[in-house]
């Protein structure tokens, strides 16, 4: 169902000098699905996300978003997406309210106070609204970041290791909240994490990358069955060490 695709990537390649960070990658993201982008460090996940957000320009290949070329419609695309990463911070010297008010303005949300309060409550950090962001615990900061990521009711959400700094209890609550929002609002999510258990719980579909290329794709169950692996953790380690996956159904293969 091509009309259901919010992102469509064809033969995407990015080279930095002699290094090929993303190598002929093709995939799509459907409306309302959670796609896990997996792979060891240096596999090309971050570069792929940067390419999808238009922060980095591709060497070749095409990225279509909502049926349009990303390069020609990046500004409109960014109105409809958002991003949260464990490695990107909100200004620590502003209050949570100030930070979220600024981002509400950047996304063109007028009379944003109600929306800000709703999102903070959703992630269980409503009481932090008047506090200086830098005074919050890392878990609270992560949830404020997530609240910021939902301010504009995004249709596509990029989540880069969003639970990396959370304790298991809060991480579980966040996963449940994300799943709930995804089901209620049909938000597509592109999710990276090194927590393979989390990926199994959350993702409808996964793509494993190694050395910039796709080596496996499918639902977690399909990928595991094809690779004859007991868990995504085991498969991840195999890919990280060998750069390839045994694929009995013949889909992916060598990196």
């Amino acid at each position, binding site marked *: 169902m091509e009309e259901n695709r919010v992102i469509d990537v064809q033969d995407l390649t990015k080279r930095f000098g002699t290094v090929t960070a993303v190598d002929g990658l093709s995939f799509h993201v459907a409306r309302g699905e959670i796609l896990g982008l997996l792979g060891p460090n240096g596999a090309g996940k971050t570069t792929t996300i940067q390419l999808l957000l238009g922060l980095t320009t591709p060497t070749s290949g095409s990225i279509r978003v909502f049926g349009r070329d990303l390069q020609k419609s990046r500004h409109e695309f960014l109105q409809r997406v958002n991003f949260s990463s464990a490695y*990107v911070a909100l200004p620590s010297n502003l209050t949570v309210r100030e930070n979220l008010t*600024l*981002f509400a303005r950047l996304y063109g949300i007028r009379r944003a106070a109600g929306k800000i309060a709703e999102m903070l409550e959703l992630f269980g950090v409503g009481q932090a609204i008047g506090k200086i962001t830098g005074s919050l615990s890392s878990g609270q900061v992560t949830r404020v970041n997530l609240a*910021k990521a939902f301010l504009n009711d995004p249709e596509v959400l990029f989540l880069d290791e969003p639970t990396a700094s959370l304790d298991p209890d809060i991480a579980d609550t966040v996963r449940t909240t994300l799943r709930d929002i995804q089901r209620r609002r049909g938000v597509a999510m592109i999710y990276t994490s090194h927590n393979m258990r989390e990926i199994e719980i959350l993702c409808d579909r996964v793509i494993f990358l190694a050395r910039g290329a796709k080596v496996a794709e499918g639902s977690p169950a399909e990928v595991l069955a094809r690779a004859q692996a007991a868990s995504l953790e085991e498969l991840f380690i195999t890919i990280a060490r060998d750069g390839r996956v045994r694929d009995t159904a013949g889909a992916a293969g060598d990196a």
Partner: protein
Amino acid sequence: MWLRISALLLRYLYLYRRSLPRAMELFFWPVMELLIWGFLTVYLSHVAVPHAVVFLIGSTILWEVFYRSQMAITLSVSEDIWVRNIMNIFIAPVRVPELLIATCLLGLIRSLLTGVILGVLAQVFYAFDILAVGPALVPFYVSLLLFGWAVGMCTVGVILRFGQAAEALIWGVPFLLQPLSAVFYPVGILPGWLQAVARVFPSTHVFEGMRIALLTGKVEPSLIATALGLNLVYLAAGAAFFGWMLKRVREKGYLSRLAME
């Protein structure tokens, strides 16, 4: 568009409310410079060089307009790099001109605030009236503001491209331009070949014009026109350079590196 520009501007203005170093940077250092140069010039006036006295105080105040204007642009973007917020800004639906306009408006606010404070203090301490420059004060101020914007855009472009390694330029570039702009002495003092270099900068024509205005009470329209004309070229070049640097940054994937630095 103006909602996003106001958001960016507010984001930068918020910083001043809770940061003593930032507030000091806006008021303390300019005031210190004025005091040092001011008292030096009081001394010089006693040794019978009265015009030099007036020129030095006027130059100090006007130089701050340029300095604060370019610092507003460079420090604003650098601040977002330092606190790892730069990715959030670049994945928000903010167009590059909107980002530049917001930082330029901040430069306008900063330079106005600093200029007014220094003008008042100069009157109180040294009986120097900056308004004695006459109506030319407005185009002089605008020229230095615009030149600050242009230099700021170039500097930010280099910072985005080279990261923290290039941050010394925030403070270094203005001081590189200061001796070449004949801020505290007439351009004629410079060696002949350096005079030609100095006249390439709009700031040189502003300070030459200021000295003429203070000395004779007359405005030299050709100096104002030259400064404003040069500024148009510098602004266009600054914006183009920033755009080119950003294009290179996107090609090389440096934005994520900036976010991680």
